[in-house]
């Protein structure tokens, strides 16, 4: 069945293409992409800090400008970066685990689970701020597990079941959230609506520190499972046959994803579609190997949300949009495209 000879030009092109999607072929290329992404992230962070309705520079700041810069702008930009990284990494690993490129924290109901957890914490334990991310984590863990159980059947899991289960849980959680919102007093309503859509304007330094810790450990944990994920992505039975402790890997991925989504939702609401767009773009660039997809998604997710938030707070300045509106505007059409393609 050798339709193409070894030295045939087509074969040569194929070999060259293999460099763009092969596993361990060309470490230099991947190093370059990694370094490039980090440099881009740093540039984007600086640009985002300088841009805004109040023009700032790092020098000759008035007292109020300095307050804007250090207490509002910088925490917000940095939080955008950690939230973006969290969501992209969670999306990338959930997709590999569930063998479905359409899996995304927001669409699977994971984000809404976290949102409900956060709201319950705000409604009942308003004085204990530290409970918010914890209850968000609890909410996202319960939502993830429920959707997974619903989507699973003896024949395995298919796209339709997973997406439907996600939709059902998302709408169920949304209606509970709406109910809770209507019970809350009206002055909080506007900020809640924004927050539910994904909003970085309430950024705090503590929120940033927490998400930073979780994203660093979470990404490291998920990257450590990337080799196993490469087999899980092909099939759970295959993975088991070829030596992966499937149950343990699944638990680690679910827990890490729930923690990442939980802490980011607790600090900035449900920024949707980041976990869909970013891993998709990364796979187009470096192929499907999760040892590359996971860390690169983290950096690219950070870049993407910082950029989206910069647009959100400058495009109709001095008024602002929630960043989730921008990411959804980009993500929803991509989702439709991917769904049609599969």
């Amino acid at each position, binding site marked *: 069945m050798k339709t193409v000879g070894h030295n045939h030009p087509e074969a040569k092109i194929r070999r060259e293409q293999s460099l763009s999607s092969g596993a361990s072929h060309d470490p230099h290329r991947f190093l370059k992409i990694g370094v490039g992404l980090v440099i881009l992230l740093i540039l984007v962070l600086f640009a985002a800090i300088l841009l805004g309705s109040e023009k700032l520079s790092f020098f000759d700041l008035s007292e109020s400008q300095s307050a804007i810069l250090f207490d509002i702008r910088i925490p917000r930009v940095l939080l955008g970066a950690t939230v973006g990284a969290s969501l992209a990494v969670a999306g990338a690993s959930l997709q590999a685990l569930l063998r479905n490129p359409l899996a995304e924290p927001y669409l699977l109901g994971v984000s809404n689970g976290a949102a409900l957890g956060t709201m319950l914490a705000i409604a009942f334990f308003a004085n204990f701020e530290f409970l918010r991310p914890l209850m968000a984590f609890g909410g996202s863990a319960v939502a993830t597990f429920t959707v997974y159980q619903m989507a699973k059947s003896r024949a395995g899991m298919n796209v339709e079941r997973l997406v439907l289960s996600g939709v059902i849980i998302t709408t169920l959680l949304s209606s509970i959230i709406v109910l809770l919102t209507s019970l809350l007093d009206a002055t909080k309503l506007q900020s809640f609506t924004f927050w539910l859509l994904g909003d970085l304007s309430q950024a705090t330094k503590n929120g940033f520190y927490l998400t930073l810790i979780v994203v660093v450990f979470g990404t490291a944990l998920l990257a450590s499972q990337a080799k196993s994920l490469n087999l899980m992505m092909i099939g759970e039975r295959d993975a088991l046959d*070829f030596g992966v402790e499937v149950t343990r890997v699944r638990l680690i991925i679910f827990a890490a994803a729930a923690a990442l989504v939980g802490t980011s939702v607790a600090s900035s609401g449900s920024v949707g579609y980041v976990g869909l767009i970013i891993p998709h773009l990364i796979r187009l660039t470096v192929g*499907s190997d999760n040892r590359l997809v996971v860390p690169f998604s983290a950096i690219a997710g950070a870049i993407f949300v910082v950029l989206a938030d910069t647009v959100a707070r400058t495009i109709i300045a001095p008024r602002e949009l929630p960043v989730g509106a921008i990411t959804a505007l980009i993500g929803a059409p991509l989702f439709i495209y991917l769904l049609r393609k599969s």
Partner: protein
Amino acid sequence: MLSIQNISINYGTNEVIKEVDFTLRENRIVAILGANGAGKTTLLKALNGSLRITKGAILLDEKPLESFSRREIAKKIAVVAQENETKFPVTVLEFVLSGRFAHGGVFGWETDNDLQIAENALEMCDLKDFESRLMNELSGGERQRVVFARALATEAGILLLDEPTANLDLSHQAILFRLVRERCQTCNSSAVIITHDLNLASEFADQILLLKRGQVVANGTPDEVLTAENLQEVFAVEVFLDGHPVSGKPRITMSY
């Protein structure tokens, strides 16, 4: 060596495998034959511990299969399952390299040695120019050969094959069976093959296990097992039997 001792498997209250007992010795090919739903795939899944048995025991090199980790089992037993489609753009080489998972660390990259082994496996399966092709763009038969190449890349001593030739053309069926036999003769390996092709089983297997509703109806050499009565009982069809013109093994001809 894999020793299967009186195993039974239940799905709920339904007993799908009943007291199956046989030994897979080195250098041997065992074929499992039986009608659809006879429990062949279920039995095969139990042989590497990916499906839990209800009764009996399976010993791998004289130790209970449960005492091995998944990784240790994967080094000794490789599986060619009925094909699995992936929605991600995985290349053929990446797919075959995943067969080396149990040999490397949990982290890190495959070594040059792994790469070499994967490339050899691809070459053996006549897939040399397929390295960079994407799995989801291959034909069913090509994909099946890649799945087989991945099993070869594990260098495991025992091969479990579930209808490995279902989508293959004649020449690739022959290549696959020849590779399995070569491996069993030269590397002290052994293989269990599920197939519906009675003549291939007759030609290549040293031992045949005939299953009916989860029970072994006959177990022995092709000559002993492939009789008109046995085949009538298991498949409920009338067959003619004569000898293969070259090998002299039983040759089965259906009468419709």
